[in-house]
């Protein structure tokens, strides 16, 4: 018996998958609203992507091609571990190519290449509640969402500007969905926020916090800001040292004892694709 045969397809039993799919449908019907779901205990720790894994397990079909990234890269340890989990338990094809994947599970990034209709982007979410660090009680924050009471968030952003001259949130930058719910985009850098208005379905799974939320294709997703302090998607002011890309999000890598640094694309597939097409950055030569 192979390992794939020891488990139900994609690990979860069919009842649980059905429960999650119902939650997903509700989440898609109310974009940005956090739907409680009976999250299961998975064979990987809470905080390591159990929400995303459950969502992926519920949407995968045998014909799917799965890509898993963490920090934009396919070869980071936890991405490797989650990809292996689905290779083992679902036996689906896996890929590192953004364009070839039908389901992409991600932690902390949105791929650089635009996603198309027919693709699903699954986010791993640590704290789904955008108001959590302003109000620790779930009973209170649910009320605030119900009443569309988002004044506290605007006060926080305003205080940032008063103190620092700009909004001091660099990742997990709050967005408003379809003019209604304020939503946590998961800890993606705010550079990625504008990409959230996309053709693909976006599903967000928070396992430990037992919440699922979603964005249907082409949903209006607006990063919170003020007229005189408009939202700005920022990145390190360098081109990629390997592929020369000017508009991609960059990781800063320390390369020597003297504090020498270089900047490279965080999206490894994007970078490899550009290099294969002949683009060469400052340090990308042979």
């Amino acid at each position, binding site marked *: 018996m192979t390992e794939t045969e020891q488990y139900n397809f994609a690990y979860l*039993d069919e009842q649980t998958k059905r429960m999650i799919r119902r939650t997903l449908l509700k989440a898609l019907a109310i974009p940005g609203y956090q739907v*409680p*779901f*009976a*999250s*299961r*205990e*998975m064979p990987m*720790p*809470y*905080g*390591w992507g*159990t929400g995303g894994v459950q969502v992926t397990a519920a949407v995968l079909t045998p014909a799917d091609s799965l890509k898993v990234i*963490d*920090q*934009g*890269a396919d*070869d*980071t*340890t936890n991405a*490797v*571990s989650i990809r*292996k989990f689905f290779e083992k338990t679902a036996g689906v094809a896996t890929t590192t190519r953004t364009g070839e994947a039908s389901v992409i599970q991600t*932690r*902390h990034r949105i791929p650089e290449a635009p996603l198309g209709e027919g693709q699903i982007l699954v986010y791993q979410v*640590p704290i789904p509640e955008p108001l959590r660090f302003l109000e620790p*009680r*779930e*009973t209170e924050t649910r009320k605030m969402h119900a009443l569309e009471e988002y004044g506290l968030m605007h006060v926080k952003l305003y205080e940032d500007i008063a103190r*620092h*001259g*700009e909004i*001091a949130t*660099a*990742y*997990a930058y709050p967005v408003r969905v379809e003019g209604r719910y304020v939503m946590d985009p998961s*800890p*993606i*850098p*705010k550079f990625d926020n504008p990409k959230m208005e996309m053709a693909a379905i976006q599903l967000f799974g928070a396992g*430990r916090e*037992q919440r699922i939320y979603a964005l249907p294709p082409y949903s209006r997703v607006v990063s919170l800001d003020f007229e005189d302090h408009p939202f700005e998607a*920022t*990145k*390190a002011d360098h081109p990629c*040292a*390997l592929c020369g890309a000017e508009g991609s*999000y*960059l*990781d*800063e*890598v320390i*390369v020597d004892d003297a504090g020498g640094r*270089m900047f*490279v694309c*965080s999206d490894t597939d994007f970078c490899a694709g550009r290099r294969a097409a002949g683009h060469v950055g400052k*340090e*990308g*030569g*042979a």
Partner: protein
Amino acid sequence: MYVAVKGGERAIDNAHAWLAEERRGDPSVAELSVAQIREQLALAVNRVMAEGSLYDPDLAALAIKQARGDLIEAIFLIRAYRTTLPRLGASEPVDTGAMACDRRISATFKDAPGGQVLGPTFDYTHRLLDFMLAAGAEIAEAPQAEPRTAPMPRITDFLDRDGLIQPEAPSDEVPPDLTRAPLDFPANRALRLQSLARGDEGFVLGMAYSTQRGYGRNHPFVGELRVGCVAVEMEIPELGFAVEIGEVVLTECETVNQFAGSKTEPPQFTRGYGLAFGHSERKAISMALVDRALRWEELGEDDMGAPAQDAEFVLSHADNIQASGFLEHIKLPHYVDFQSELELVRRIRAEAAEAGTREAAE
């Protein structure tokens, strides 16, 4: 040329191989068997069963072996296994009044029907390291008495009979199950008790201790603590009656707490309740104290603002699998987030420095 770090997959495989070697330890020392752990580290096995929410001493012992003795890791293994098990049905409520007790003590009455039975307890041992144990000395056989046949009714039933303690109304309501439905507040008592029963022993102990030190004090006495075997019965639909399907060892604690009375209620004692798989006294007593603290609202007491009175706080943070997973996830790469913070801090610093120079020039 710079080459980005690759090979996560091989690194993971190698790490697992190394872990297996470390787990085994020095191969010249005999390997522990699962049966040895089950028999000789029984209290660790009990904790893993209690917080893993699965009564199976063999699996718990295996988990402890696999986890190299890390009990939270072992609990995690049991929980992950448990979620894959099909649910065949629910048992009848167990009758702890009919428990075959190994131990039964009351701190509120010097003697009561059934008597005080110390059982196998550390309570009055002097905590002196026993070097004879290291030397592998034979142990003397424990003296045996005639088996007790007299029933051992619950202590609180005596108080209940006189109306001195707040009564617990029996209910046929199906209790909620936080492993099958998302946690929601307000949480009723059954749900709170389920959460506490699965909760981390250290966390529940700390919460209970905080009530004793004045953060939501509720003056508890151990009305009764009993440890022993109870029958588990289940109604089989084809038969139409309940049959015994097994036995479990439980620890049950009922506390008797002072209550001054309120405008509507005459003074009477109130209760806290703790129940845990296996012989797990510290857990059961802690649970009873926290249960009692969480009952402030239904008993018409004041909210002192104490952490142990706050159901949302206690229930959201009691689970050590949730807590340790989220805590340890900060070991995972966060360099995308860190990078964005780095840029923000650099930019704000540059702007501040620029403003400083401008002011100096003016």
